[in-house]
């Protein structure tokens, strides 16, 4: 952790279940560097390798691995809820609602004008309706994950998938395949079921205004489109939605330095 440049550099690391993201900003909040890596089975080794690539003065950790990171690096932590809220709000200051769908959790966050968290909802226990769910379903249907959303969006109709549980949904999908249904339409049905759940969470925290959509799942074009159709609210996606948490943590690290709290 050496300082080579004169300007102070603040890092945020988001240790997620699927990927680890690292962002470095300057005191003004401008992104200087960004990195991303698969979490793998040993998150601290991956985190170590990532932070070895960059120089920074302060670091703040978020994501499910934050407490492990705190122990190893004696760094302050922030929950992914506050980190995503801050990252999303900084890029879209007019936003009062954030939807984050990551690898194994999803959350809807309502914000005050100041960007502070007003209320949030988060899925508990299982990975229903998250990135992991979509990943498994894409594999079951033989789609590349990167192409899954585009294929689903191209479907002519939606097949009803009633189960949100990954295990049950997988058997539901298997039986639809066995019936000879179009796999694009099955894919579309799966996307619709995830959106139904996400919309429910959003409605519990806020009822109007644009929504910033973050997390890896925001890269899926079908999710964005279906969310817009379902809620009739503008959906805004950050330039790199997966980095929103790490970006937010980096900004909060800079802020903490300023306020000294």
């Amino acid at each position, binding site marked *: 952790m050496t300082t080579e440049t004169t300007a102070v550099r603040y890092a945020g690391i988001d240790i997620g279940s699927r990927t680890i993201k690292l962002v470095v900003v300057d005191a003004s909040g401008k992104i200087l560097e960004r990195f991303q890596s698969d979490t793998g089975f040993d998150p601290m080794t991956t985190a170590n390798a990532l932070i070895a690539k960059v120089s920074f003065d302060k670091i703040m950790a978020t994501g*499910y691995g934050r407490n492990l990171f705190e122990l190893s690096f004696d760094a302050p932590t*922030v*929950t*992914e*809820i*506050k980190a995503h809220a801050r990252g999303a709000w900084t890029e879209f200051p007019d936003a009062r609602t954030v939807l984050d769908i990551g690898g194994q*959790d999803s959350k809807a966050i309502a914000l005050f004008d100041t960007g*502070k*968290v*007003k*209320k*949030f909802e*988060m*899925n*508990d*226990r299982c990975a229903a309706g998250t990135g992991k769910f979509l990943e498994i379903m894409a594999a079951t249907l033989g789609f590349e994950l990167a192409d899954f959303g585009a294929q689903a969006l191209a479907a002519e109709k939606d097949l009803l998938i009633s189960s949100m549980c990954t295990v049950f949904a997988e058997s539901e999908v298997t039986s639809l395949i066995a019936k000879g249904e179009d796999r694009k339409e099955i894919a579309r049905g799966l996307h619709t079921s995830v959106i139904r759940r996400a919309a429910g969470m959003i409605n519990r925290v806020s009822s109007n205004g644009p929504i910033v959509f973050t997390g890896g799942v925001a890269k899926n074009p079908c999710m964005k489109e279906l969310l817009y159709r379902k809620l009739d609210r503008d959906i805004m996606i950050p330039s790199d939605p997966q980095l929103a948490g790490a970006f937010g943590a980096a900004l909060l690290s800079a802020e903490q330095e300023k306020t000294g709290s």
Partner: protein
Amino acid sequence: MTTDYTPMWQELGLDLAGHDALLNVLGTAYTDIYLSQKNRPEGMGYFDFVMSEVHGLRIKELMDEKAAGRKIIGSYCVFVPEEIVLAANATLVGLCSGADFAMEKVEQLLPRNTCSLIKSSFGFKIGKVCPYLESADMIVGENTCDGKKKAYETLGAMVNNLYVMDLPQTKTDQTKDLLKAEYMKFKAAVENLTGVAVTSESLKSAINVVNAKRAAIHRLSSLRKADPAPISGLDALLANQVFFYDNPARFTESVNKICDELETRIQEKTGAFPADTPRILVSGCPQAVPNWKLHMITETAGAVIVGEESCVGERGTRNLTADTGTTVEEMMDAIVDRYFQVDCAIFTPNSQRLDHIQEMAAAYNAQGVIHYGLQFCQPYLMESIPVEKALEEKNIPCLRVETDYGMEDAGQLKTRVEAFIEQLR
């Protein structure tokens, strides 16, 4: 533990291997959760001792009482009037229902989607690991929620001493009469068990004993209003839990002793946590020993719990029983009046509970409320939504938690609680 209680446990018919395993888990959990806390009041040493002897010395005391001809009555609910039990020369103890045990066997008798508390009470029975239950001469069930009501039908076939008390679910003059009739019936049943008639003297003295216990808890609660909080939520919760097990007079004395110490701490501005630590009120389902999950997660995430709107907490202890009566009849009426005010979620409507939560949040200077719902506990989970709404209208943030006794959701729960605390800062 210095004394070997094995012969006593054996005599009670406990499953020794299972019981050892339970005590091991309990001991480890207590060390990890309680003894690791910093800045504890010295008086908590009493509760550390009580917990280390919870299945030992306290049971020995109960067995000695039994040998001297006193009866032991076990209960699962704050609607069972301790005044009546004491007045008829019996001892009331809360029965174990705060930890998962023998779950596979429990799920052969109860549906999976039954709340942890009910399942736990069955687990302790099936596993033969609750010495309170095994030493009880009478077990009192009560028709509160549907889950408990129906579970007692099954429990009745598993024990030979279950007494089920009916309870009203609305609050009118007629239902108050029903409660009175049930309490009169209960009095007769206890008298029949002990062979001792309740007299105006014995009932008056019992009312005073139980009131003193409640008053000590009131004093403890009101000291939690200070900032910095002089005692952790975990420690105060433990006092509220031990309320159900301990010898009443000794409990009262020990809690008052802690209160003396807390008053000094407040003067010296010594807290269990630093001043300005975010303050949280917990409201909802009861947390029976050793269910310390939410308090542990919350207080290790950087907040302090300053009150429990719960049966194991202020809902259970809020009101005193008027001691102005001179006849048994008058005092029974006072007891009915007192218990009829308990704002359990089995009542409909139950708006007093909403008022009490808001009053408590203000009185204890709580910045936020965590609504604690046990999964599948329909009455409290239903109420959690209007509770959240009422609090938000007053700009008091509320986090609704729905969980069980398992630890598989601890990571998610911790993240949610931490994010809630960030929200309060």
